[in-house]
């Protein structure tokens, strides 16, 4: 197990390195405009451009420039915005991170709960009314744009009905967990639901398929022959085996979630997390801010999926042997 963890960590570090090189090349070495004016904005004065050139070593060879950028991003952490002059980027990201993490955490809990129970219910009632319903949600989940769903949810909860049935919904914003746990959950409730509903549909659909496949396996027949109850067979044998594929999907989806869906959900609901910060950067073309967000976001994704893989290997010993 330790060897597996070490191996997985080494590959995660390699991936982070290649991602950082790729981001560096995209931002600093794509043909076109002078990188200095790209970073400092089109209207920057020659003095500012000179300062940028010096700070990022723009007249030095590529590897040195790469090293300098990493130094400013991760070690000295003094990358500054040129749109809001003097704003340091890394502290902004670390301040925004708890909001993004809260959003993801709650959404993950809801989507796993709903997805797994939905899948089990659909598999149990195969061919009955619930079954096509789960299939329908599975299709809907991969067809609805998350930000649009978010807009519709805020339209319903913040629009005309806000004065009657949805009066308990806060007017957006965020309250930190340490400040008031109840308000924290209340403020994040609809963003959580929006984000979770999409994935819950996919997971229910996948789990249903896996469960139905597993129920036809020989070991289930053996369990039946032993005289185990149907309940025990489903929960202790079939479900356990089917959850393995859910865990492996989960590793992939956490990545998609942070980079995509969570970002858009934050923008729609006005939650000022890392995604919202990226959005602000995009609106103002604040390249250092975007670069910082992309880099920290991508690193988080890589580490999170490495962590999921370790959990995966813990659950399923076969993975350890193969890898």
């Amino acid at each position, binding site marked *: 197990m330790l060897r597996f963890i070490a191996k997985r960590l080494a590959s995660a570090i390699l991936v982070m390195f290649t991602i950082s090189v*790729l981001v560096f090349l995209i931002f600093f070495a794509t043909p076109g405009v002078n990188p200095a004016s790209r970073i400092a904005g089109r209207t920057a004065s020659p003095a500012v451009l000179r300062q940028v050139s010096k700070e990022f070593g723009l007249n030095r060879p590529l590897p040195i420039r790469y090293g300098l950028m990493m130094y400013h991003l991760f070690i000295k952490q003094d990358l500054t915005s040129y749109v809001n002059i003097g704003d340091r980027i890394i502290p902004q990201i670390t301040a925004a991170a708890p909001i993004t993490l809260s959003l993801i955490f709650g959404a993950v809990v809801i989507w796993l709960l709903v997805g797994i129970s939905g899948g089990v219910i659909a598999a149990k009632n195969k061919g009955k009314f619930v079954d096509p319903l789960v299939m329908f949600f599975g299709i809907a989940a991969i*067809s609805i*744009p998350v930000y649009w769903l978010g*807009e519709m949810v805020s*339209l319903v909860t913040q629009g005309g009905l806000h004065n009657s049935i949805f009066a308990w919904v806060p007017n957006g914003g965020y309250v930190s967990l340490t400040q008031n746990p109840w308000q924290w959950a209340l403020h994040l409730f609809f963003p959580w639901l929006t984000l979770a509903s999409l994935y819950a549909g*996919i997971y229910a659909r996948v789990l249903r398929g896996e469960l139905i496949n597993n129920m036809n396996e020989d070991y289930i027949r053996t369990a039946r022959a032993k005289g185990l109850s149907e309940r025990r067979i489903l929960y202790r044998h079939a479900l356990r085996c089917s959850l393995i594929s859910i865990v492996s999907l989960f590793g*992939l989806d956490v990545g998609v979630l942070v*980079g995509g869906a969570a970002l858009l959900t934050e923008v729609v609901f006005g939650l000022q997390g890392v995604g919202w910060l990226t959005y602000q950067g995009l609106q103002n073309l604040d390249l250092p801010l975007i670069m910082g967000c992309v880099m920290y976001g991508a690193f988080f994704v*890589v580490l999170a999926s490495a962590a999921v893989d370790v959990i995966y290997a813990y659950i399923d010993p076969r993975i350890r042997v193969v890898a």
Partner: protein
Amino acid sequence: MIALGVLLFMVVVTLLAPLYAHDIAHDNPFASNLQGRIKIGNHYRSVMQANTQGLGLGVTPIGPTWDFSKYFLGADELGRDVFARMLYGGRVTLLIGFSSGLICIVVATVLGMLAGYFGRATDWIISRLLDIVWAFPIYLLAISLSVILVTSGLDLGIIHIGAGSLLLPILIIASVYVPYVARPVRGIVFSLKEREFIQAAIASGASDWHILRKEILPNVAPSVIVFFPLMVALNILTESALSILGIGVQPPQASWGTIINDGLQLLYTRPWVAIGPGVCIVITCVALNILGDGVRDAFDPRAKLRGSI
């Protein structure tokens, strides 16, 4: 079948928009119309109506008239007909969806076939390239590429693509999804290579080009075709997400994504600006996904491509 019908309907309705759009919007859906007046029933109303609430400052665009001939879904903040824009936006969205799907699948098939067939160094290089793109969270990669290219365009010696060109989102979306198709193709080619009929072709002295084209491609094609509808749905969602962030389709062009974005500011006063194009996206993607599932079941029950977002 219903799914195919719905999809064809969306394609035809948007493609033919220039033929009948002048009956819907009397003006160009891309030009602002802040002073215009339209006749509803017996009286005239301005497209931009003065606010009556609060301080009475500013204007609000007209709401849905539910009359196809003028402002069916109302106007946006520049007084443009949302319904007409939606039809034209659909052309752009579908164009991006289909063409980037096509580019992605062609490039991915070629890469996957080369890597799987030649193995060794070719495979190593192509696989590492794919690994890098694969490891990068899709949206973050698309955002990084878009923000650079959409601001300054792409300049590759003889080829120059302007900053506002539709080619940029098409190429960006196509390239971020390449590994998702190329990897399975590579796997299929690897296992095909061991099969007797390929071994026989090699033994009989057929050229690599001949084997790739005549023996391997026909066996890879069904697995690739099943990806296509799902790929297009995924591309449409990606395009609209990028447009929402302001780095997809650039004005004056419109897509369903950019119209939803326009609607975000008007969400509580004129919700139809955002609802309309969103419903179009959902209908199109549901049709594509159902179609994709059907095609998959028909061609290759084992293939799997999962959608995201």
